[in-house]
């Protein structure tokens, strides 16, 4: 089969599963059978993605392009698929992580009622379709379609526990914030269309600066860059596998993927790239700082995701597309692993809080081991996956003389290693909490995906050269000063973390100070900000609505009322006395006669 056929398969089989489950209520409500439909769809999609890559990169070099007119007959507003190295690899990452997550969910959501489980897997299939739509997009228009659809599924999945007010709130907030950012995408898209008459990735246009700036605004929302990252920590209200798939590995990385895809446009906009580098650098540092003080294991990982996305954005801002793309891939594996591992821990103790864990390594050696693998990969310890990609990013940023972002990234690297060590120490070692005493390993359906992802987190870094070849870049690992320094900083962070949270338990005052800082940042600052913004919006709405009801409509009512009252007044003219009417007739005749005669 040709790459395009396989890609179509990967795209539409999950859609078929979603439609099947969506339309057939009875099937959906059976729960596990419905889940198998969805998993089967994901497996087919994964097989398609693997087959595309197994076909060799000869077929992918020019890229298979297949489009149908969507809004009009021509190719200008078409949808379809575009399969080249970049999209084929991304397709594999997405389908692989999605398959792992879906299988994992079978075990993780075992206790859900069948109807809810069916609903969950319907959303999962829909997500896979939406994400593949975005990944395989032949132009910006389709990218936007997929972009919005993944946002929608994100909303639905965060709100999976819709009876829980906090989940409901988080889902809506995530949608609002990302949708607000998507205004940028829409404006950029429309501008591109207005100027070039099409939506091509490769368009050469004088408005590229504006378009890319607008696109980057959307990326800030979707990929959780400061200050539009506020939705991501709340999004952790969703089930943990959802966090792993959407809010760590794939959906939030869609922004990075978009920039990678739209490289020709961004290449025309050095200004946008510089802004990206600074925003990314700041986000990487800022989010890492917050992650240090979080007490909820998923929140730690959420801020870590923010921070890592900041890394990727900085790399793209530095103009090194491959560095960002590479880190996107490795991050997808190890962050999904971390989330799923954390999910396994959460599943065991029924709590997200780090203080409810502790000493879990003894009870759950497998989950603990894979979580540690994920952590060291994230911390950039050689030879795990994160080491290679993070090095590459630091090099690229240094190469482009972006020293301020570089400094931010370096500090962030230290903090990353530090907070991951802290998390590992608090969750897996030390004195077990009350809840942790009854913890036990999950079943095979959860272990299998963890194992696969752990393997990838170990080896993915070595695939850099191959990936570069696939996407048409040049890369071979080589030792540099900056990279070495980055690794050293990471190791220093691990050491510091170990000193403070390891068995020796040093640095007590610092530790004590952390908790209130975390509470302040979490609830005192960012939450307050978004609440104020929301309240302000509602207030404006209330004022406008009041004006509409009582002033504008009041004027309308008043004009009706004037007629009413006028009529009531004039009613007196109708005396009911026939002679008065005759008198009026006579008067009329006199007036008309006078006008006729005296004219």
């Amino acid at each position, binding site marked *: 089969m040709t790459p395009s056929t396989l890609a179509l398969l990967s795209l539409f089989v999950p859609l078929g599963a979603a439609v099947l489950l969506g339309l057939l209520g009875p099937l959906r409500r059976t729960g596990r059978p419905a889940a198998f439909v969805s998993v089967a769809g994901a497996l087919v999609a994964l097989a398609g993605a693997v087959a595309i890559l197994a076909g060799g990169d000869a077929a992918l070099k020019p890229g298979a392009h297949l489009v149908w007119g969507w809004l009009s007959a021509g190719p200008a507003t078409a949808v379809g698929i575009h399969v080249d190295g970049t999209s084929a690899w991304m397709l594999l990452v997405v389908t692989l992580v999605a398959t792992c997550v879906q299988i994992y969910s079978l075990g993780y959501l075992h206790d859900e009622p069948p109807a809810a489980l069916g609903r969950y897997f319907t959303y999962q299939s829909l997500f896979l379709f939406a994400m593949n739509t975005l990944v395989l997009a032949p132009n910006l228009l389709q990218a936007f379609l997929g972009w919005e659809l993944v946002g929608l599924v994100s909303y639905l999945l965060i709100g999976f526990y819709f009876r829980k007010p906090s989940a409901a709130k988080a889902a809506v907030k995530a949608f609002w914030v990302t949708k607000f950012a998507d205004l940028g995408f829409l404006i950029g898209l429309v501008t591109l269309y207005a100027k070039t008459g099409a939506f091509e990735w490769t368009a050469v246009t004088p408005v590229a600066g504006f378009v890319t700036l607008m696109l980057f605004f959307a990326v800030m929302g979707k990929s959780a860059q400061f200050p539009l990252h506020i939705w991501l920590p709340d999004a952790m209200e969703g089930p943990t596998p959802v966090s792993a798939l959407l809010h760590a590995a794939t959906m939030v990385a869609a922004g990075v993927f978009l920039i990678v895809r739209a490289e020709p446009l961004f290449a025309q906009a050095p200004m946008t790239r510089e802004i990206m580098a600074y925003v990314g650098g700041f986000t990487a540092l800022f989010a890492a700082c917050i992650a240090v003080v979080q007490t909820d294991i998923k929140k730690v990982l959420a801020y870590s995701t923010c921070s890592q996305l900041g890394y990727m954005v900085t790399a793209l801002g530095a103009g090194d597309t491959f560095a960002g793309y590479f880190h996107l891939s490795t991050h997808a594996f190890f962050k999904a692993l971390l989330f799923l591992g954390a999910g396994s821990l959460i599943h065991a103790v029924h709590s997200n809080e780090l203080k409810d864990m502790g000493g879990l390594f003894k009870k759950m050696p497998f989950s603990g081991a894979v979580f540690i693998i994920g952590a060291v990969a994230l911390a950039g310890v050689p030879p795990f996956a994160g080491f290679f990609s993070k090095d590459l990013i630091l090099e690229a940023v240094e190469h482009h003389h972006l020293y301020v972002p570089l400094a931010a990234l370096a500090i962030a690297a230290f903090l990353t290693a530090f907070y991951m060590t802290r998390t590992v120490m608090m969750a897996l070692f030390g004195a077990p909490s009350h809840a942790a005493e009854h913890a036990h390993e999950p079943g095979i359906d959860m272990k299998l995906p963890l194992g696969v992802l752990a393997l990838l987190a170990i080896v993915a870094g070595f695939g850099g050269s191959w990936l570069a070849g696939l996407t048409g870049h040049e890369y071979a690992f080589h030792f540099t000063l900056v990279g070495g320094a980055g690794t050293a900083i990471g190791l220093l962070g691990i050491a510091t973390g170990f000193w403070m949270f390891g068995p020796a338990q040093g640095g007590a005052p610092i530790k004590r100070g952390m908790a209130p800082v975390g509470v302040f940042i979490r609830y005192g600052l960012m939450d307050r900000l978004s609440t104020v913004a929301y309240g302000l919006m509602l207030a404006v709405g209330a004022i406008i609505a009041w004006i509409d009801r009582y002033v504008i409509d009041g004027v309308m009512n008043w004009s009706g009322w004037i007629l009413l009252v006028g009529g009531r007044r004039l*009613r*007196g*003219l*109708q*005396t*009911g*006395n*026939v*002679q008065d009417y*005759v*008198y009026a007739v*006579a008067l009329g005749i006199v007036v008309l006669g006078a006008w006729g005669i005296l004219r």
Partner: protein
Amino acid sequence: MTLDAYVLIAGFMFCIGLYGVLTRRNAIGILVSVELMVNAANINLAAFAHFGRGIDGQVLVLFTTALTVAEVVVGLALVLLLFRRRKDILVDLANGLKG
């Protein structure tokens, strides 16, 4: 005598009739006044017939006379009805059309 004399006298009569219609309180009184007005019109018709318009004017007088009779008949029937309902035929008391 010339035509304008007849027309003038008809005009006088019409105005007197109108005055009656406007001032009478009694329904029959109003009918009387209406008769005066119709009569004025008849005089006009007859006069114009005499001064140059020929037979048709007189024919028309015949018709209007018949119409007047019909009108008086119906009018009086209404007056009777009014009287039976209201025990009175003062028109300013019959103001059912009042808004």
